[in-house]
C-alpha cells in the first residue's frame, strides 16, 4: 500500500488534534514543594500530607470549604443537646470506603477513639481532648459527648487530623490510604509523585477530573522550569515569589495571590537569658522593619501583622502599631534593660525563603540597634530536633500554618516557652464559650495580650501565591487549611 507523504502528514495531524480539541482535559498535575512523609493525616504533622489527601481521599464529619467556613461532609446534619455538651450527628447514607466497606457510625467511633488513644500519634490530639465518649446510636447516627460545652467542635472535626478511617484499613493509611473521598489513591513513586484517580462510586457530587498527579519539586528553579515546560499544570503554593512577575506576564498562566493561615513570626525563646526580659523582646519588635522583610524576602507578597492572628479572620484587630519600626525606641529599651550593645543571639533558620532571606534582613536590622546575631541555617529535621523539641535557640523564623492557632500561646511547654496564666485562663474560657459575640471579644483580647507581651516578633501573614494554567478552574484561591481540594477543579476548553 502506498500512502503519499502529504496525506500521511494530514492524517497524523488529524489524529493529534482530534483528541484534545473536542473534550476538555480531565487530568491535572499539581506541583508541590514538599513530599509528604506518609499519607495518614491522623498520624503526622506534615502539611504536605493534608495537601494531598484532604477532601480528595479522606473526609471527616465536617469539612472546610475554600472560604474557610465549616460545612457538612460525612455528617449530613447535627443537633446540639444537653446544654452544648452532646452533639448528635446524622450520617450520610450510602457512603462506602474505597475498598467497598460500608461507612457507618462504628467508623466514627473508631476514628475518634483512635485519635484520642494514649498511643495515638495524632499531631493535634488537643482537638479531641474535650470529647469524653462517642456513642453509636444506630448505623447512621452517632453522638459525641463533651466534658464542657465546646463551640469549636464542628471546626475541630473539619481538620485533616479528624478524618474518618475504616478500622479494617486504618493501619495501612500511611502508605495505602483508603477513605471515602471522591478520589482513590493509585500510585506513589517515592521522591517523585503521587497519583490519585476518580472514585466512580463516590457518594457525593461527582468530580470533573479523572486523574490527578501531585509532583514533588523542592528546588524553586526546577519548579519554574517545570511550569514553563508544561510538566506541571499548577503550583498551588509556588515557592519562589521572585518569579511571579514573569509568570504573570506569560499568557499561559494566571497568578492568584490569596491568603493562608501562615502567621510568619520571629519566634523568641522566652526562657532564654536575654529574651526573658520583655523590654528586650519589645526592643527587637521595634527594631524590625516588616515592610522591608515583606519586600526583600517575599518580593512584596505578604501582609504585616502585629499579633499571632490572620488579617482575613473576622475577629482580627490591627496591632501592628504596638511594634512600629522605631530604632531609637529599640535602643532606648535595650539601654533601659541594661543590655545595650552587649547582646548576642542565635538565629536558626529553616529552609524556606521567608526564613533564610528574612533572617538575613532581620540580622542586619538588629545589628543596627546593637544586637548581634549568629545565623545558622538548618534543615527541617534539625530545626524540629534543636528548636521545636530541644528549645535550643534564641531566635528562629517560622510560619505557623494551622488555622486559628493562637491557642499555642497557652501551651507553657511550647517551643517559644511563653508563660502567662491570664492568657491560659482566657483560652480555657474561650474553648468553652459558645456565644459568638463573646468569642469575638475573647479572640481580640487574646491578640492584644500576646502583642503587648511581645512574645514573638510578629512579621507578616504568608501569602498564598498560586500559579496555574489559565484553563484550570476551581482551585482554592486562599488556603484556610492545608489542602489542595480538587473536588471543584475542572479544565475549560
Amino acid at each position, binding site marked *: 500500500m502506498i500512502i503519499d507523504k502529504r496525506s500521511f502528514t494530514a492524517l497524523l495531524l488529524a489524529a493529534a488534534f482530534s483528541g484534545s480539541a473536542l473534550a476538555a482535559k480531565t487530568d491535572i498535575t499539581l506541583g508541590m514543594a514538599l513530599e509528604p512523609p506518609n499519607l495518614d493525616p491522623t498520624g503526622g504533622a506534615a502539611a504536605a500530607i493534608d495537601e494531598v489527601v484532604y477532601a480528595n481521599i479522606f473526609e471527616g464529619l465536617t469539612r472546610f470549604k475554600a472560604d474557610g467556613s465549616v460545612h457538612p461532609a460525612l455528617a449530613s446534619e447535627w443537633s446540639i443537646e444537653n446544654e452544648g455538651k452532646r452533639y448528635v450527628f446524622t450520617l450520610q447514607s450510602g457512603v462506602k470506603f474505597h475498598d467497598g466497606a460500608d461507612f457507618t457510625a462504628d467508623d466514627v467511633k473508631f476514628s475518634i477513639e483512635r485519635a484520642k488513644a494514649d498511643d495515638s500519634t495524632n499531631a493535634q490530639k488537643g482537638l479531641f481532648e474535650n470529647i469524653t465518649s462517642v456513642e453509636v446510636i444506630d448505623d447512621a447516627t452517632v453522638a459525641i459527648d463533651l466534658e464542657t460545652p465546646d463551640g469549636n467542635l464542628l471546626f475541630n472535626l473539619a481538620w485533616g487530623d479528624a478524618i474518618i478511617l475504616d478500622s479494617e484499613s486504618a493501619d495501612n493509611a500511611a502508605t495505602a490510604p483508603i477513605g471515602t473521598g471522591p478520589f482513590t489513591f493509585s500510585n506513589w513513586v517515592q521522591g517523585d509523585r503521587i497519583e490519585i484517580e476518580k472514585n466512580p462510586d463516590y457518594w457525593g457530587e461527582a468530580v470533573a477530573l479523572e486523574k490527578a498527579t501531585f509532583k514533588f519539586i523542592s528546588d524553586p*528553579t526546577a519548579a519554574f522550569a517545570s511550569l514553563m515546560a508544561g510538566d506541571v499544570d499548577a503550583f498551588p503554593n509556588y515557592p519562589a515569589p*521572585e518569579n511571579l512577575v514573569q509568570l504573570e506576564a506569560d499568557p499561559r498562566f494566571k497568578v492568584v495571590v490569596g491568603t493562608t493561615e501562615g502567621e510568619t513570626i520571629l519566634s523568641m525563646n522566652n526562657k532564654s537569658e536575654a529574651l526573658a526580659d520583655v523590654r528586650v523582646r519589645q526592643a527587637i519588635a521595634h527594631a524590625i522593619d516588616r515592610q522591608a522583610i515583606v519586600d526583600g524576602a517575599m518580593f512584596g507578597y505578604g501582609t504585616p501583622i502585629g499579633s499571632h492572628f490572620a488579617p482575613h479572620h473576622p475577629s482580627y484587630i490591627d496591632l501592628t502599631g504596638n511594634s512600629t519600626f522605631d530604632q531609637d525606641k529599640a535602643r532606648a529599651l535595650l539601654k533601659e534593660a541594661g543590655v545595650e550593645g552587649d547582646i548576642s543571639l542565635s538565629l536558626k533558620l529553616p529552609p524556606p525563603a521567608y526564613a533564610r532571606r528574612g533572617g538575613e*534582613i532581620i540580622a542586619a536590622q538588629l545589628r543596627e540597634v546593637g544586637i548581634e546575631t549568629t545565623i545558622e541555617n538548618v534543615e527541617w529535621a534539625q530545626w524540629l530536633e534543636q528548636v521545636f523539641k530541644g528549645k535550643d535557640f534564641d531566635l528562629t523564623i517560622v510560619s505557623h500554618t494551622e488555622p486559628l492557632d493562637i491557642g499555642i500561646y497557652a501551651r507553657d511547654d511550647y517551643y517559644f516557652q511563653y508563660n502567662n496564666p491570664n492568657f491560659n485562663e482566657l483560652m480555657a474560657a474561650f474553648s468553652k464559650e459558645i456565644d459568638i459575640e463573646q468569642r469575638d471579644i475573647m479572640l481580640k483580647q487574646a491578640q492584644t495580650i500576646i502583642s503587648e507581651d511581645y512574645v514573638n516578633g510578629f512579621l507578616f501573614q504568608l501569602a498564598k501565591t498560586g500559579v496555574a494554567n489559565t484553563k484550570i478552574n476551581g482551585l482554592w484561591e486562599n488556603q484556610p487549611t492545608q489542602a489542595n481540594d480538587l473536588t471543584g477543579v475542572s479544565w475549560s476548553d
Partner: protein
Amino acid sequence: MSVAASSRFKTLLPGAFLVLVFFGAALISFFYTPFDVETLNIKNRMLTPNAVNWLGTDHFGRDILSMLMVGARTSIAVAFIAVGIGVLFGVPLGLLAASYRGRWADEFIMRGNDLVFAFPALLIAIMITAVFGPGAVNAIIAIGIFNVPVFARLTRGASLSLWNREFIMAARVAGKGSARISFEHILPNILNLLIVQSTIQFSLGILAEAGLSYVGLGAQPPTPSWGRMLADSQTLTTVAPHLALFPGMVIVLTVLGLNLLGDGLRDWLDPRLRRER
C-alpha cells in the same frame, strides 16, 4: 627574547596577573569597599550595573562589587588555610613514609592516605559540616583533610627517587639522621614541586569553598561568599541574570588564573623542562 621566555609569558604572566587582581581586591577590601556589605537597602535591590554600583546590586540591595571583594577574602582565607593544613600534615607524612620506604610505617601511612583519598572530596566535606555544623572553620578543616593525601603522596613519590642519590648517601655517611636528611636535603629539592602543587590545590580549594557555600555548608551569612552569592541568585537568573553572572565569572577567572600560574611556575621551576627548551 628567548623562546623559553616567550612561552613563559603565555601562562605565567596572565596567570600571575589574574591572581594579583584577585588577591589585590581581597587586600583592598580590608581597608575599603565601595559600600558596606552588611547594610541592606531593600529599596535599591537588583539594580543593573550603573555609575554608582559598578556591578549592580543584589536582591537585598547590597553592592555586588563590594560583596565580591569581601567574598574574595573568604575564598582566599579558606583555600589558603586548607592548603596550609594539607602541606603541614601531608609533607611531613610523605617525608616520613619515604624515609621508612618499604617498611610497615610507610605502608601504614600511605594506606591511611589511600583511605582518605578514596573518599570523594566533597563527600568528606559534607560529612564534616553535617556533623560539626556549617561554617567557614569546618569548611577549612574539610577541605584541608582532602589536601593531606595529595601532598603526602607527592612528597613521598618525589623523595623516594632522591633517597638513592649520592648526595643523600654522603649525608648519611656524614652521620645525619633520617629526619635531618629529610628536612635539610630532601625537602629543598622537592620544594618546586610542592609550590606548583599548592597553586593547583589552592584553585581546587577555592572551587570547594564555593561548592560548599553553594549548598549552604560554607561561611554563614552575613559573611559574603561567592558560592552563596551564586546560590542566592539561582532563582533570580531570569529576572536579574547579573546576580549570578558576576560571582560565576569571578570564580572562573580566579581558578583559571591559579591554574595558569601553576602551569607557568612548573615550566619555570622544573629544571628538566628548562633544559629542554
